[in-house]
């Protein structure tokens, strides 16, 4: 019990902190905020004074038959109303500028933070989750720093001001009519409290529905192929009914409490008429004062009700704040040292010294790996799925930092140089190719936005991509990626090669797997890759024999350990695991006699092409 209470207190203070922190984002826009607050105070003064005017009109103008006064006050009333309109617009507009700017700043901050977080963050993060934080959660924070903030001040001012005026006018009637206000506030608060967990549950259940359906649609082919349509629909229906049950509870809560709040509020007006009327009959109150009284009271009702409604919004926003700040406060695993040096154009010597790596601090992936690649060498990485090949190549551009040991490029620890100068000199072509939704030209020039058309075309030619680009509807200006032309896997890979070529990197990292393309395309990609590797230190995740045979050094990995290292001819003699792997995996079962003769012949052709 004690623990629960202290945990609740802790949550409470965390949510207050996140709300306060949200408000600090208003600081750059304090001029707008102050302006909005001043305009708000002015509108409230007018709102409080206007019924006094009406009272004057009723009591003096109509009651005492003073036509001049009647005209004058009606005229002032309309002018004051106009002024109030202008002020209302002003505070609304300024607050909107301020709060939208807060949202703008927060989204920029999130974007900046996400682009500095290392791969280990992005490995775990789900895109949908981040998007919903950047869009919906930021929107809820915006609401708190804008309208909700204003409404709180507005409601507070109006309640205080009106109460003061009412008490000044007639203390006993004021107290009687205002006795409904605490009741109203309490009830609204209670309502908010009950509604909040329910709305959260409904939102969560809707997210469950969405995910369930999304999975169903994405896996439509599997659902059909395994004839599971009925079961899928039933599962959705169950979640759907669960959603309905929650919604029904919220509907009931709303249906009862909305009219109840209205009723409590209007009972105040009944008190005023009955008790106030009694006072008028006994000449202790004028009729005008009575009318003014009921006007004030009706003015008070909406803000008090809205204050009650803001409480759940505040709770939602503080939860949103916590989610957004969680991203902003995440410390990147890979960060630039404060005294990071500029890395000059490198020769290309890469040295691993006793490098170990564990994902998320738990799963050990690499253990005590040491090797050296001299400038211009081709290093082939070989090993089964999960042996640590990709980790080795991901450590070189510092996508992750090793948990132990160090990596040196040209003798410099890569943790001591600036990230951009390091990554600028490393080119990467991986199997799963990401292209951006823009033109072919922009995709090729991605790493060097200022490249000339000649340079881009030269890169495309070298990557064997020029031909298919020319055949596309708008050539280099054809849009690819989302909303653009759909490219085949082989075409995407060649664009990625062109992109890496144009960058003219000193160190090259690539995956020579071309399993999902047909043999013609594969051949073209091979030629492009060979060109790309010339004169650069290259790390290749080897999938084919030709790569292994031409590599200057083969690193054989097994469960995160480097078990053998050397050229093909060395390893075939010295390493048992390599020889075994070679015979079982790489050398195909000898097919019919027809192949060997033909194949021997074509090797020569291949050699010429290279």
């Amino acid at each position, binding site marked *: 019990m004690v623990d629960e209470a202290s945990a609740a207190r802790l949550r409470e203070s965390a949510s207050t902190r996140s709300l306060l922190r949200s408000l600090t984002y208003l600081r750059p826009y304090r001029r707008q905020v102050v302006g909005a607050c001043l305009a708000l105070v002015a509108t409230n003064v007018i709102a409080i004074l206007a019924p006094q005017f009406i009272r004057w009109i009723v009591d003096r103008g109509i009651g005492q038959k003073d036509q001049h006064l009647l005209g004058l006050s009606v005229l002032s009333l309309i002018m004051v109303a106009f002024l109030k309109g202008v002020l209302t617009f002003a505070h609304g507009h300024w607050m909107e500028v301020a709060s*939208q700017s807060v949202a703008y700043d927060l989204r920029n901050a999130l974007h900046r933070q996400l682009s500095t977080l290392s791969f280990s963050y992005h490995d775990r993060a789900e895109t949908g989750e981040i998007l919903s934080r950047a869009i919906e959660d930021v929107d809820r924070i915006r609401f708190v720093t804008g309208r909700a903030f204003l409404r709180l001040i507005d409601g507070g001012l109006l309640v205080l001001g009106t109460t003061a005026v009412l008490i000044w006018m007639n203390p006993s009637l004021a107290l009687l009519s205002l006795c409904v206000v605490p009741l109203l506030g309490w009830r609204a608060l209670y309502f908010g409290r009950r509604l909040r967990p329910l709305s959260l549950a409904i939102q969560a259940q809707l997210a469950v529905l969405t995910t369930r*359906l999304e999975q*169903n649609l994405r896996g*439509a*082919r599997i659902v059909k192929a395994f004839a599971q349509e009925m079961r899928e629909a039933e599962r959705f229906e169950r979640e759907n009914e669960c959603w309905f049950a929650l919604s029904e509870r919220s509907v009931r809560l709303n249906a009862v409490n909305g009219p109840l709040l209205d009723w409590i509020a209007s009972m105040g007006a009944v008190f005023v008429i*009955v008790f106030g009327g009694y006072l008028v009959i006994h000449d202790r109150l004028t009729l005008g004062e009575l009318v003014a009284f009921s006007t004030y009271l009706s003015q008070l009702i909406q803000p008090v009700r809205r204050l009650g409604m803001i409480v759940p919004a505040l709770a939602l926003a503080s939860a949103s704040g916590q989610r957004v700040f969680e991203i902003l406060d995440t410390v990147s695993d890979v960060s630039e040292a404060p005294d990071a040096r500029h890395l000059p154009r490198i020769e290309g010597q890469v040295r691993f010294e006793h490098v170990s790596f564990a994902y998320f601090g738990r799963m050990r992936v690499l253990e005590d790996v040491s090797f050296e690649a001299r400038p211009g060498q081709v290093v082939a990485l070989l090993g089964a799925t999960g042996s640590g090949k990709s980790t080795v190549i991901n450590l070189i551009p510092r996508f992750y930092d090793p948990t132990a040991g160090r990596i040196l490029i040209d003798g410099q620890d890569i943790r001591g140089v600036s990230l951009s100068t390091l990554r600028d000199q490393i080119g990467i072509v991986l199997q799963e190719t990401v292209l951006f939704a823009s033109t072919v030209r922009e995709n090729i020039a991605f790493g060097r936005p200022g490249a000339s058309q000649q340079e881009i075309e030269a890169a495309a030619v070298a990557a064997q991509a020029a031909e298919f680009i020319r055949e596309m509807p708008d050539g280099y200006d054809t849009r690819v990626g989302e909303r653009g032309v759909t490219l*085949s896997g082989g075409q995407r890979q060649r664009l990625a090669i062109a992109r890496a070529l144009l960058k003219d990197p000193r160190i090259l990292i690539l995956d020579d797997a071309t399993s999902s393309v047909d043999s013609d395309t594969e051949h073209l990609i091979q030629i492009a890759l060979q060109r790309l590797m010339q004169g650069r230190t290259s790390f290749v995740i080897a999938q084919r024999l030709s790569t292994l045979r031409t590599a200057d050094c083969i690193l054989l990995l097994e469960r995160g350990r480097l078990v053998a290292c050397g050229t093909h001819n060395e390893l075939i003699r010295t390493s048992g695991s390599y020889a075994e792997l070679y015979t079982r995996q*790489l050398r195909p079962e000898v*097919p019919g006699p027809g192949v060997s003769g033909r194949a021997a012949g074509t090797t020569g052709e291949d050699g010429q092409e290279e």
Partner: protein
Amino acid sequence: MSFSIGGASGGLGPRQAIESFGESVDGRPFDPRIVSRLMGYLVPYRLHMAASVALMLLSAALTLMAPYIIKVAIDENIATGDTTGLLRSGALLTVVLVLVCACSAVQHYLLSWVGQRVLADLRSLLVHHLQELSLGYHDTHIVGVTLSRVIHDVSVINELLSQGLVTLLGDSAMLIGTIAVMLSMSPRLALLTFCVLPLMALATLVFARRAQVAFRYTRVRIAAVVGDLAENLSGMRVIQAFAQENASRERFEEVNRENRDALIGALSLSYAFLPAVELLGMAATCVVLWFGGQAVLRGELTLGVVVAFLAYVSRFFDPIRELSQVYATMQAAMAGGERVLHLLDWKPDVVDAADAEQMPAIEGRIELRNVSFAYRDGPPVLQGVDLIIDPGQTVALVGPTGAGKTTIANLIARLYEPTDGAVLIDGHDVRSVTQRSLRRQIGLVPQEPFLFTGTVADNVRFGHPDASDEEVVAATRLANAHDFVSALPQGYNTRVLEGSANLSLGQRQLLCIARAVLADPRVLILDEATSSVDTVTESLIQAALRNLLHDRTAVVIAHRLSTVLHADQICVVHQGRIVERGRHEELMALGGLYRQLCSQQLLESESAP
């Protein structure tokens, strides 16, 4: 040119999804055709609706009574010093207010209940319909868009059906009632007050027009923000690898700024509209005070009438303001309704025939008889394909990308139907049996290894939900996935994350094989099932599969020739036709396309020492 199914929807992400539903909120404000069809979904709840409307009219009438009672209290009780009368009026007012509270509580409940119920019904209807739609639909529609139909558009319709229509009815009733009461109390003062109305109408119209444009623009802008962010997130590795963080940041800041400015503009418009309505309301109050006051001075009206008029005037403008909002809701709902109905009207390409029979236990003889196929309005993918597979045979389909191999596999499972010709299994035309009984006996391992979120065990069990844990482990062992699954943090209970991010491509393929194996199919289709698995594992799987396939028919699509060497029959598919067929040795001897494919792939490995 690839017709792979996963790729058609997988390649399109959030940007397109969001823009395509963001831009089309542009329907007519009222389309009787759509409204009448949507109203059809309310029919089962007509009693609820009727009660709700009756209660609403009742509570509107009662609400209108309140100012009248106050008028009586002022004019007849207070003015004449009638204390008992005053108490009576107070009691009456209390009773009326309690009734209003009760009526509107019940009315709100009924109405919202119907709204949520219809929402749930529509969603369920849509999901059932989506299950029936064939792959032809799923290929050509982006997941995000369909999702927004079921989740987003449906809730907009709900807003129209429940809140919108009733607000329209209730506010109109309130408006007419108010006008009637005012006219009856003092026709002259009433008419003078109504002078403000044309101005109000004009303001509302101008605002509604401009707001529509402004808010539509904001939807496009927020979609751009989401799209840019989503793209950056999926391309984050490339952005970091190419050190382009600054360029992408600048681009994002620009779309972000445009979004901010659009929102400020649109919302400022409503900040201008609300004070304008308030000002016009105040003008009406002034009219009442000025002319009413003078009438009181002349003794033509009582003070109570003026006070009651003041109350009515304030009630007069609320419905108008709300009606302007209903207009926007209506417009969104029409657009949403049209899209939902469009989806519901989409006919599945593959339907069970009226007299469809259960497919008996499959022996495994598959025959394609002069089969041609074209995707919706597309060029022909298959032309006159003839193929006979005997029970227990393994047939390999090879050929360049886009040749039509996957399509042949899809036609056998009747995921599509041939545009010409017929597919027969054990002599039954697949169109003459039910889809369920057919597909329950066919196991498919697709090109894109798709896994559902849920545990590893759930995924393996997908086609055979009642399988025991032992059976799951056995199938997983056979697919050579048991070792890596056991090494996962929670073993078989490890959750597969969104996009299967915690599993490698090869691991996903192994689980897909386990899933197909567990379903215990009579016909197994392996579409590039091991393309991302290393060759050692692949050969282990093949050995295991050979045992499994002993008495089953299998269709194998592969690029790696090592995968197809042992097939009983190899078919070379090229440009929608089977150009060569036979065993490996026969085709090598033939010296055609197969030999060419082989030599390209084998040339390097063959000359190894």
